[in-house]
């Protein structure tokens, strides 16, 4: 019979080993996915990709220009719509309404909105911005993306503003400054990096969002920068091309996947770096 100590040690070793394998599994899948995207997307990264529009069926050449421009336009518009709202709402939670019930409710529901299924947001925007206006449009796509960005910006803004020590606020108030001056001069100055972080993270998040665009912006095979028309965009092109049986479409889908992955990784790493530096400063 095994001694009690030996058994305890064995069990301990077994679980430590399992824990390490869990990490190994996680990391290897991350590496596997990244390497796949890199290997499959790299060969088709060329100037052609940025110069030509998406090919129709049977065409052998083509790029992703229209999709990239469309995505960029909708993403920027979504950020422009969402960041003021997120910033101001975050301000309310961190300053005026810090201890109010409403703030608690908003904080809670914001967390829920942050992780609720993005395809539902697509359905919602379809109901109020596509169906009543007679068709899919870039505007609808941008609104859907904006709804996804708001909770991200709100959360980072609130966190960063709350890092500002209350003594600074009191010093400002003691000098007779109204609250909004205090918020702008003290809160926003300190939280600037946080807000930018939130915006970058929000941009990263929506760069790959496909589900909410499927029935808002829809997609467009041709060059179009008219926001009131169906708008070409990268994620939906990737989805359609990946699902197709044309080989050159699939190749383009991989190139698009690489572009999106690089954008997302770059933005998240920058955002991380910014948070780290601004936390150190405060």
């Amino acid at each position, binding site marked *: 019979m095994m001694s009690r100590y030996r058994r*305890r040690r064995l*069990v*301990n070793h077994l*679980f*430590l080993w399992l*824990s*390490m394998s869990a*990490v190994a*599994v*996680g990391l290897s*899948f*991350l590496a*596997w*996915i990244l390497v*796949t*995207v890199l290997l499959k997307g790299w060969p088709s990264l060329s100037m052609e990709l940025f110069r030509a529009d998406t090919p129709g069926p049977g065409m052998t050449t083509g790029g992703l220009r229209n999709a990239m421009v469309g995505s960029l336009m909708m993403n920027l518009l979504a950020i422009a719509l969402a960041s*003021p709202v997120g910033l101001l*709402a975050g301000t*309310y*939670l961190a300053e005026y*309404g810090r201890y109010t019930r409403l*703030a608690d409710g*908003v904080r*809670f*529901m*914001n*967390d*829920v909105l942050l*992780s*609720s*299924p*993005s*395809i*539902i947001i697509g*359905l*919602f925007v379809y*109901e*109020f911005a596509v169906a009543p206006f007679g068709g899919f449009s870039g505007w609808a796509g941008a609104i859907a993306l904006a709804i996804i960005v*708001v909770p991200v910006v*709100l959360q980072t803004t609130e966190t960063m503003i709350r890092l500002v020590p209350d003594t600074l606020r009191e010093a400002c108030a003691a000098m007779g400054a*109204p*609250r*909004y001056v205090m*918020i702008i001069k003290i809160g926003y100055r300190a939280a600037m990096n946080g807000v930018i972080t939130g915006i970058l993270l929000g941009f990263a998040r929506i760069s*790959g969002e*496909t*589900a909410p665009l*499927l*029935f808002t912006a829809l997609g467009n095979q041709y060059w179009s920068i008219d926001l009131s028309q169906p708008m070409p965009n990268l994620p939906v092109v*990737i*989805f359609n091309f*990946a*699902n197709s049986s044309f080989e050159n479409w*699939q190749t383009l889908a991989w190139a698009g*996947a690489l572009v*999106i*992955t690089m954008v997302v*990784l770059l933005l*998240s790493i920058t955002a*991380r770096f910014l948070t780290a530096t601004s936390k150190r400063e405060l």
Partner: protein
Amino acid sequence: MNTREAAALGELKKASVASRNITDQVFELVTLACAALVLAVLGAILLSLIMGSWQTLAKHGVGFLFHNEWDPINGNFGALAPIYGTLVTSVIAIVIGVPLSFGIAMFITELSPRILSRPLMVAIELLAGIPSIIYGMWGLFVFAPLFGQHVQPLLHDTLGRLPGIGLLFQGPPMGVGMLTAGLILALMITPFISAVMCEVFDVVPKALKESAYAVGATTWEVMVRIVVPQTKLGLVGGIMLGLGRALGETMAVTLVIGNAFLISPSLFSPGNTISSVLANEFAEADDDLYTSSLMALGLVLFLIAVVVLVAARLLLWRLRRKAAG
């Protein structure tokens, strides 16, 4: 306080309100409106889904949930197959993803040297940041073929022979299907769950752990007897948060689940989920009843997801409040 004092105080309050800078009042109102907008959006989502699905709900009633038929041509719609697929894939994701996340969180908080835990957290964040569609492409073109060729036949010949659970592993190995979708979901929710678990494990007072180590407990014993009982609420919260993600995950699942209205005990068989049906069919739905049925599917998904997410957040909030004292 006598009445005169109260009146004086009232006067004072009024005076201070009146003297408050008008810009400040406007600014406060604007920020308040923006904060309230978040609540309004959630309310509007619920309302618009209910309105959008009214036609179907009026026609089929609650039967919509338990009816297994999806026939756009004759206008018969039942949500059973997608609901079944959503639940099955999410359960697979949880069953695989939770132990995996627990192992990762345990490594980061208890085992890894400090220099290693930061980069590991970054790696987890990266895994969380990869868009769903990328997981889907990798799943469809790389993972599913390998899985169908090598792993599924193996499962079929081993677990498939067992009585009872053997039913889950029968049928032709096609690569795509419910099991593949569930596995990819597991991979996708692991970073979220393990991030929450790391955060939650940090709440455990150091003194408690150190005293356990001092009386000779092993790392594993500290985990199971001290850390887990202390953080039960948070762990369940983290798992439910992951579940909420898994339920609504769309693109990756749509690409690898095989998209068939099918309820089969075999996990190898193709299926669909609420979100994959929406992704595939919504833009093409041409009549009102069809659109309305898809909206009803969306309503079902939204309600399930919100209930799960609200429960998750409540648990995490309670833990945080407990930790704060």
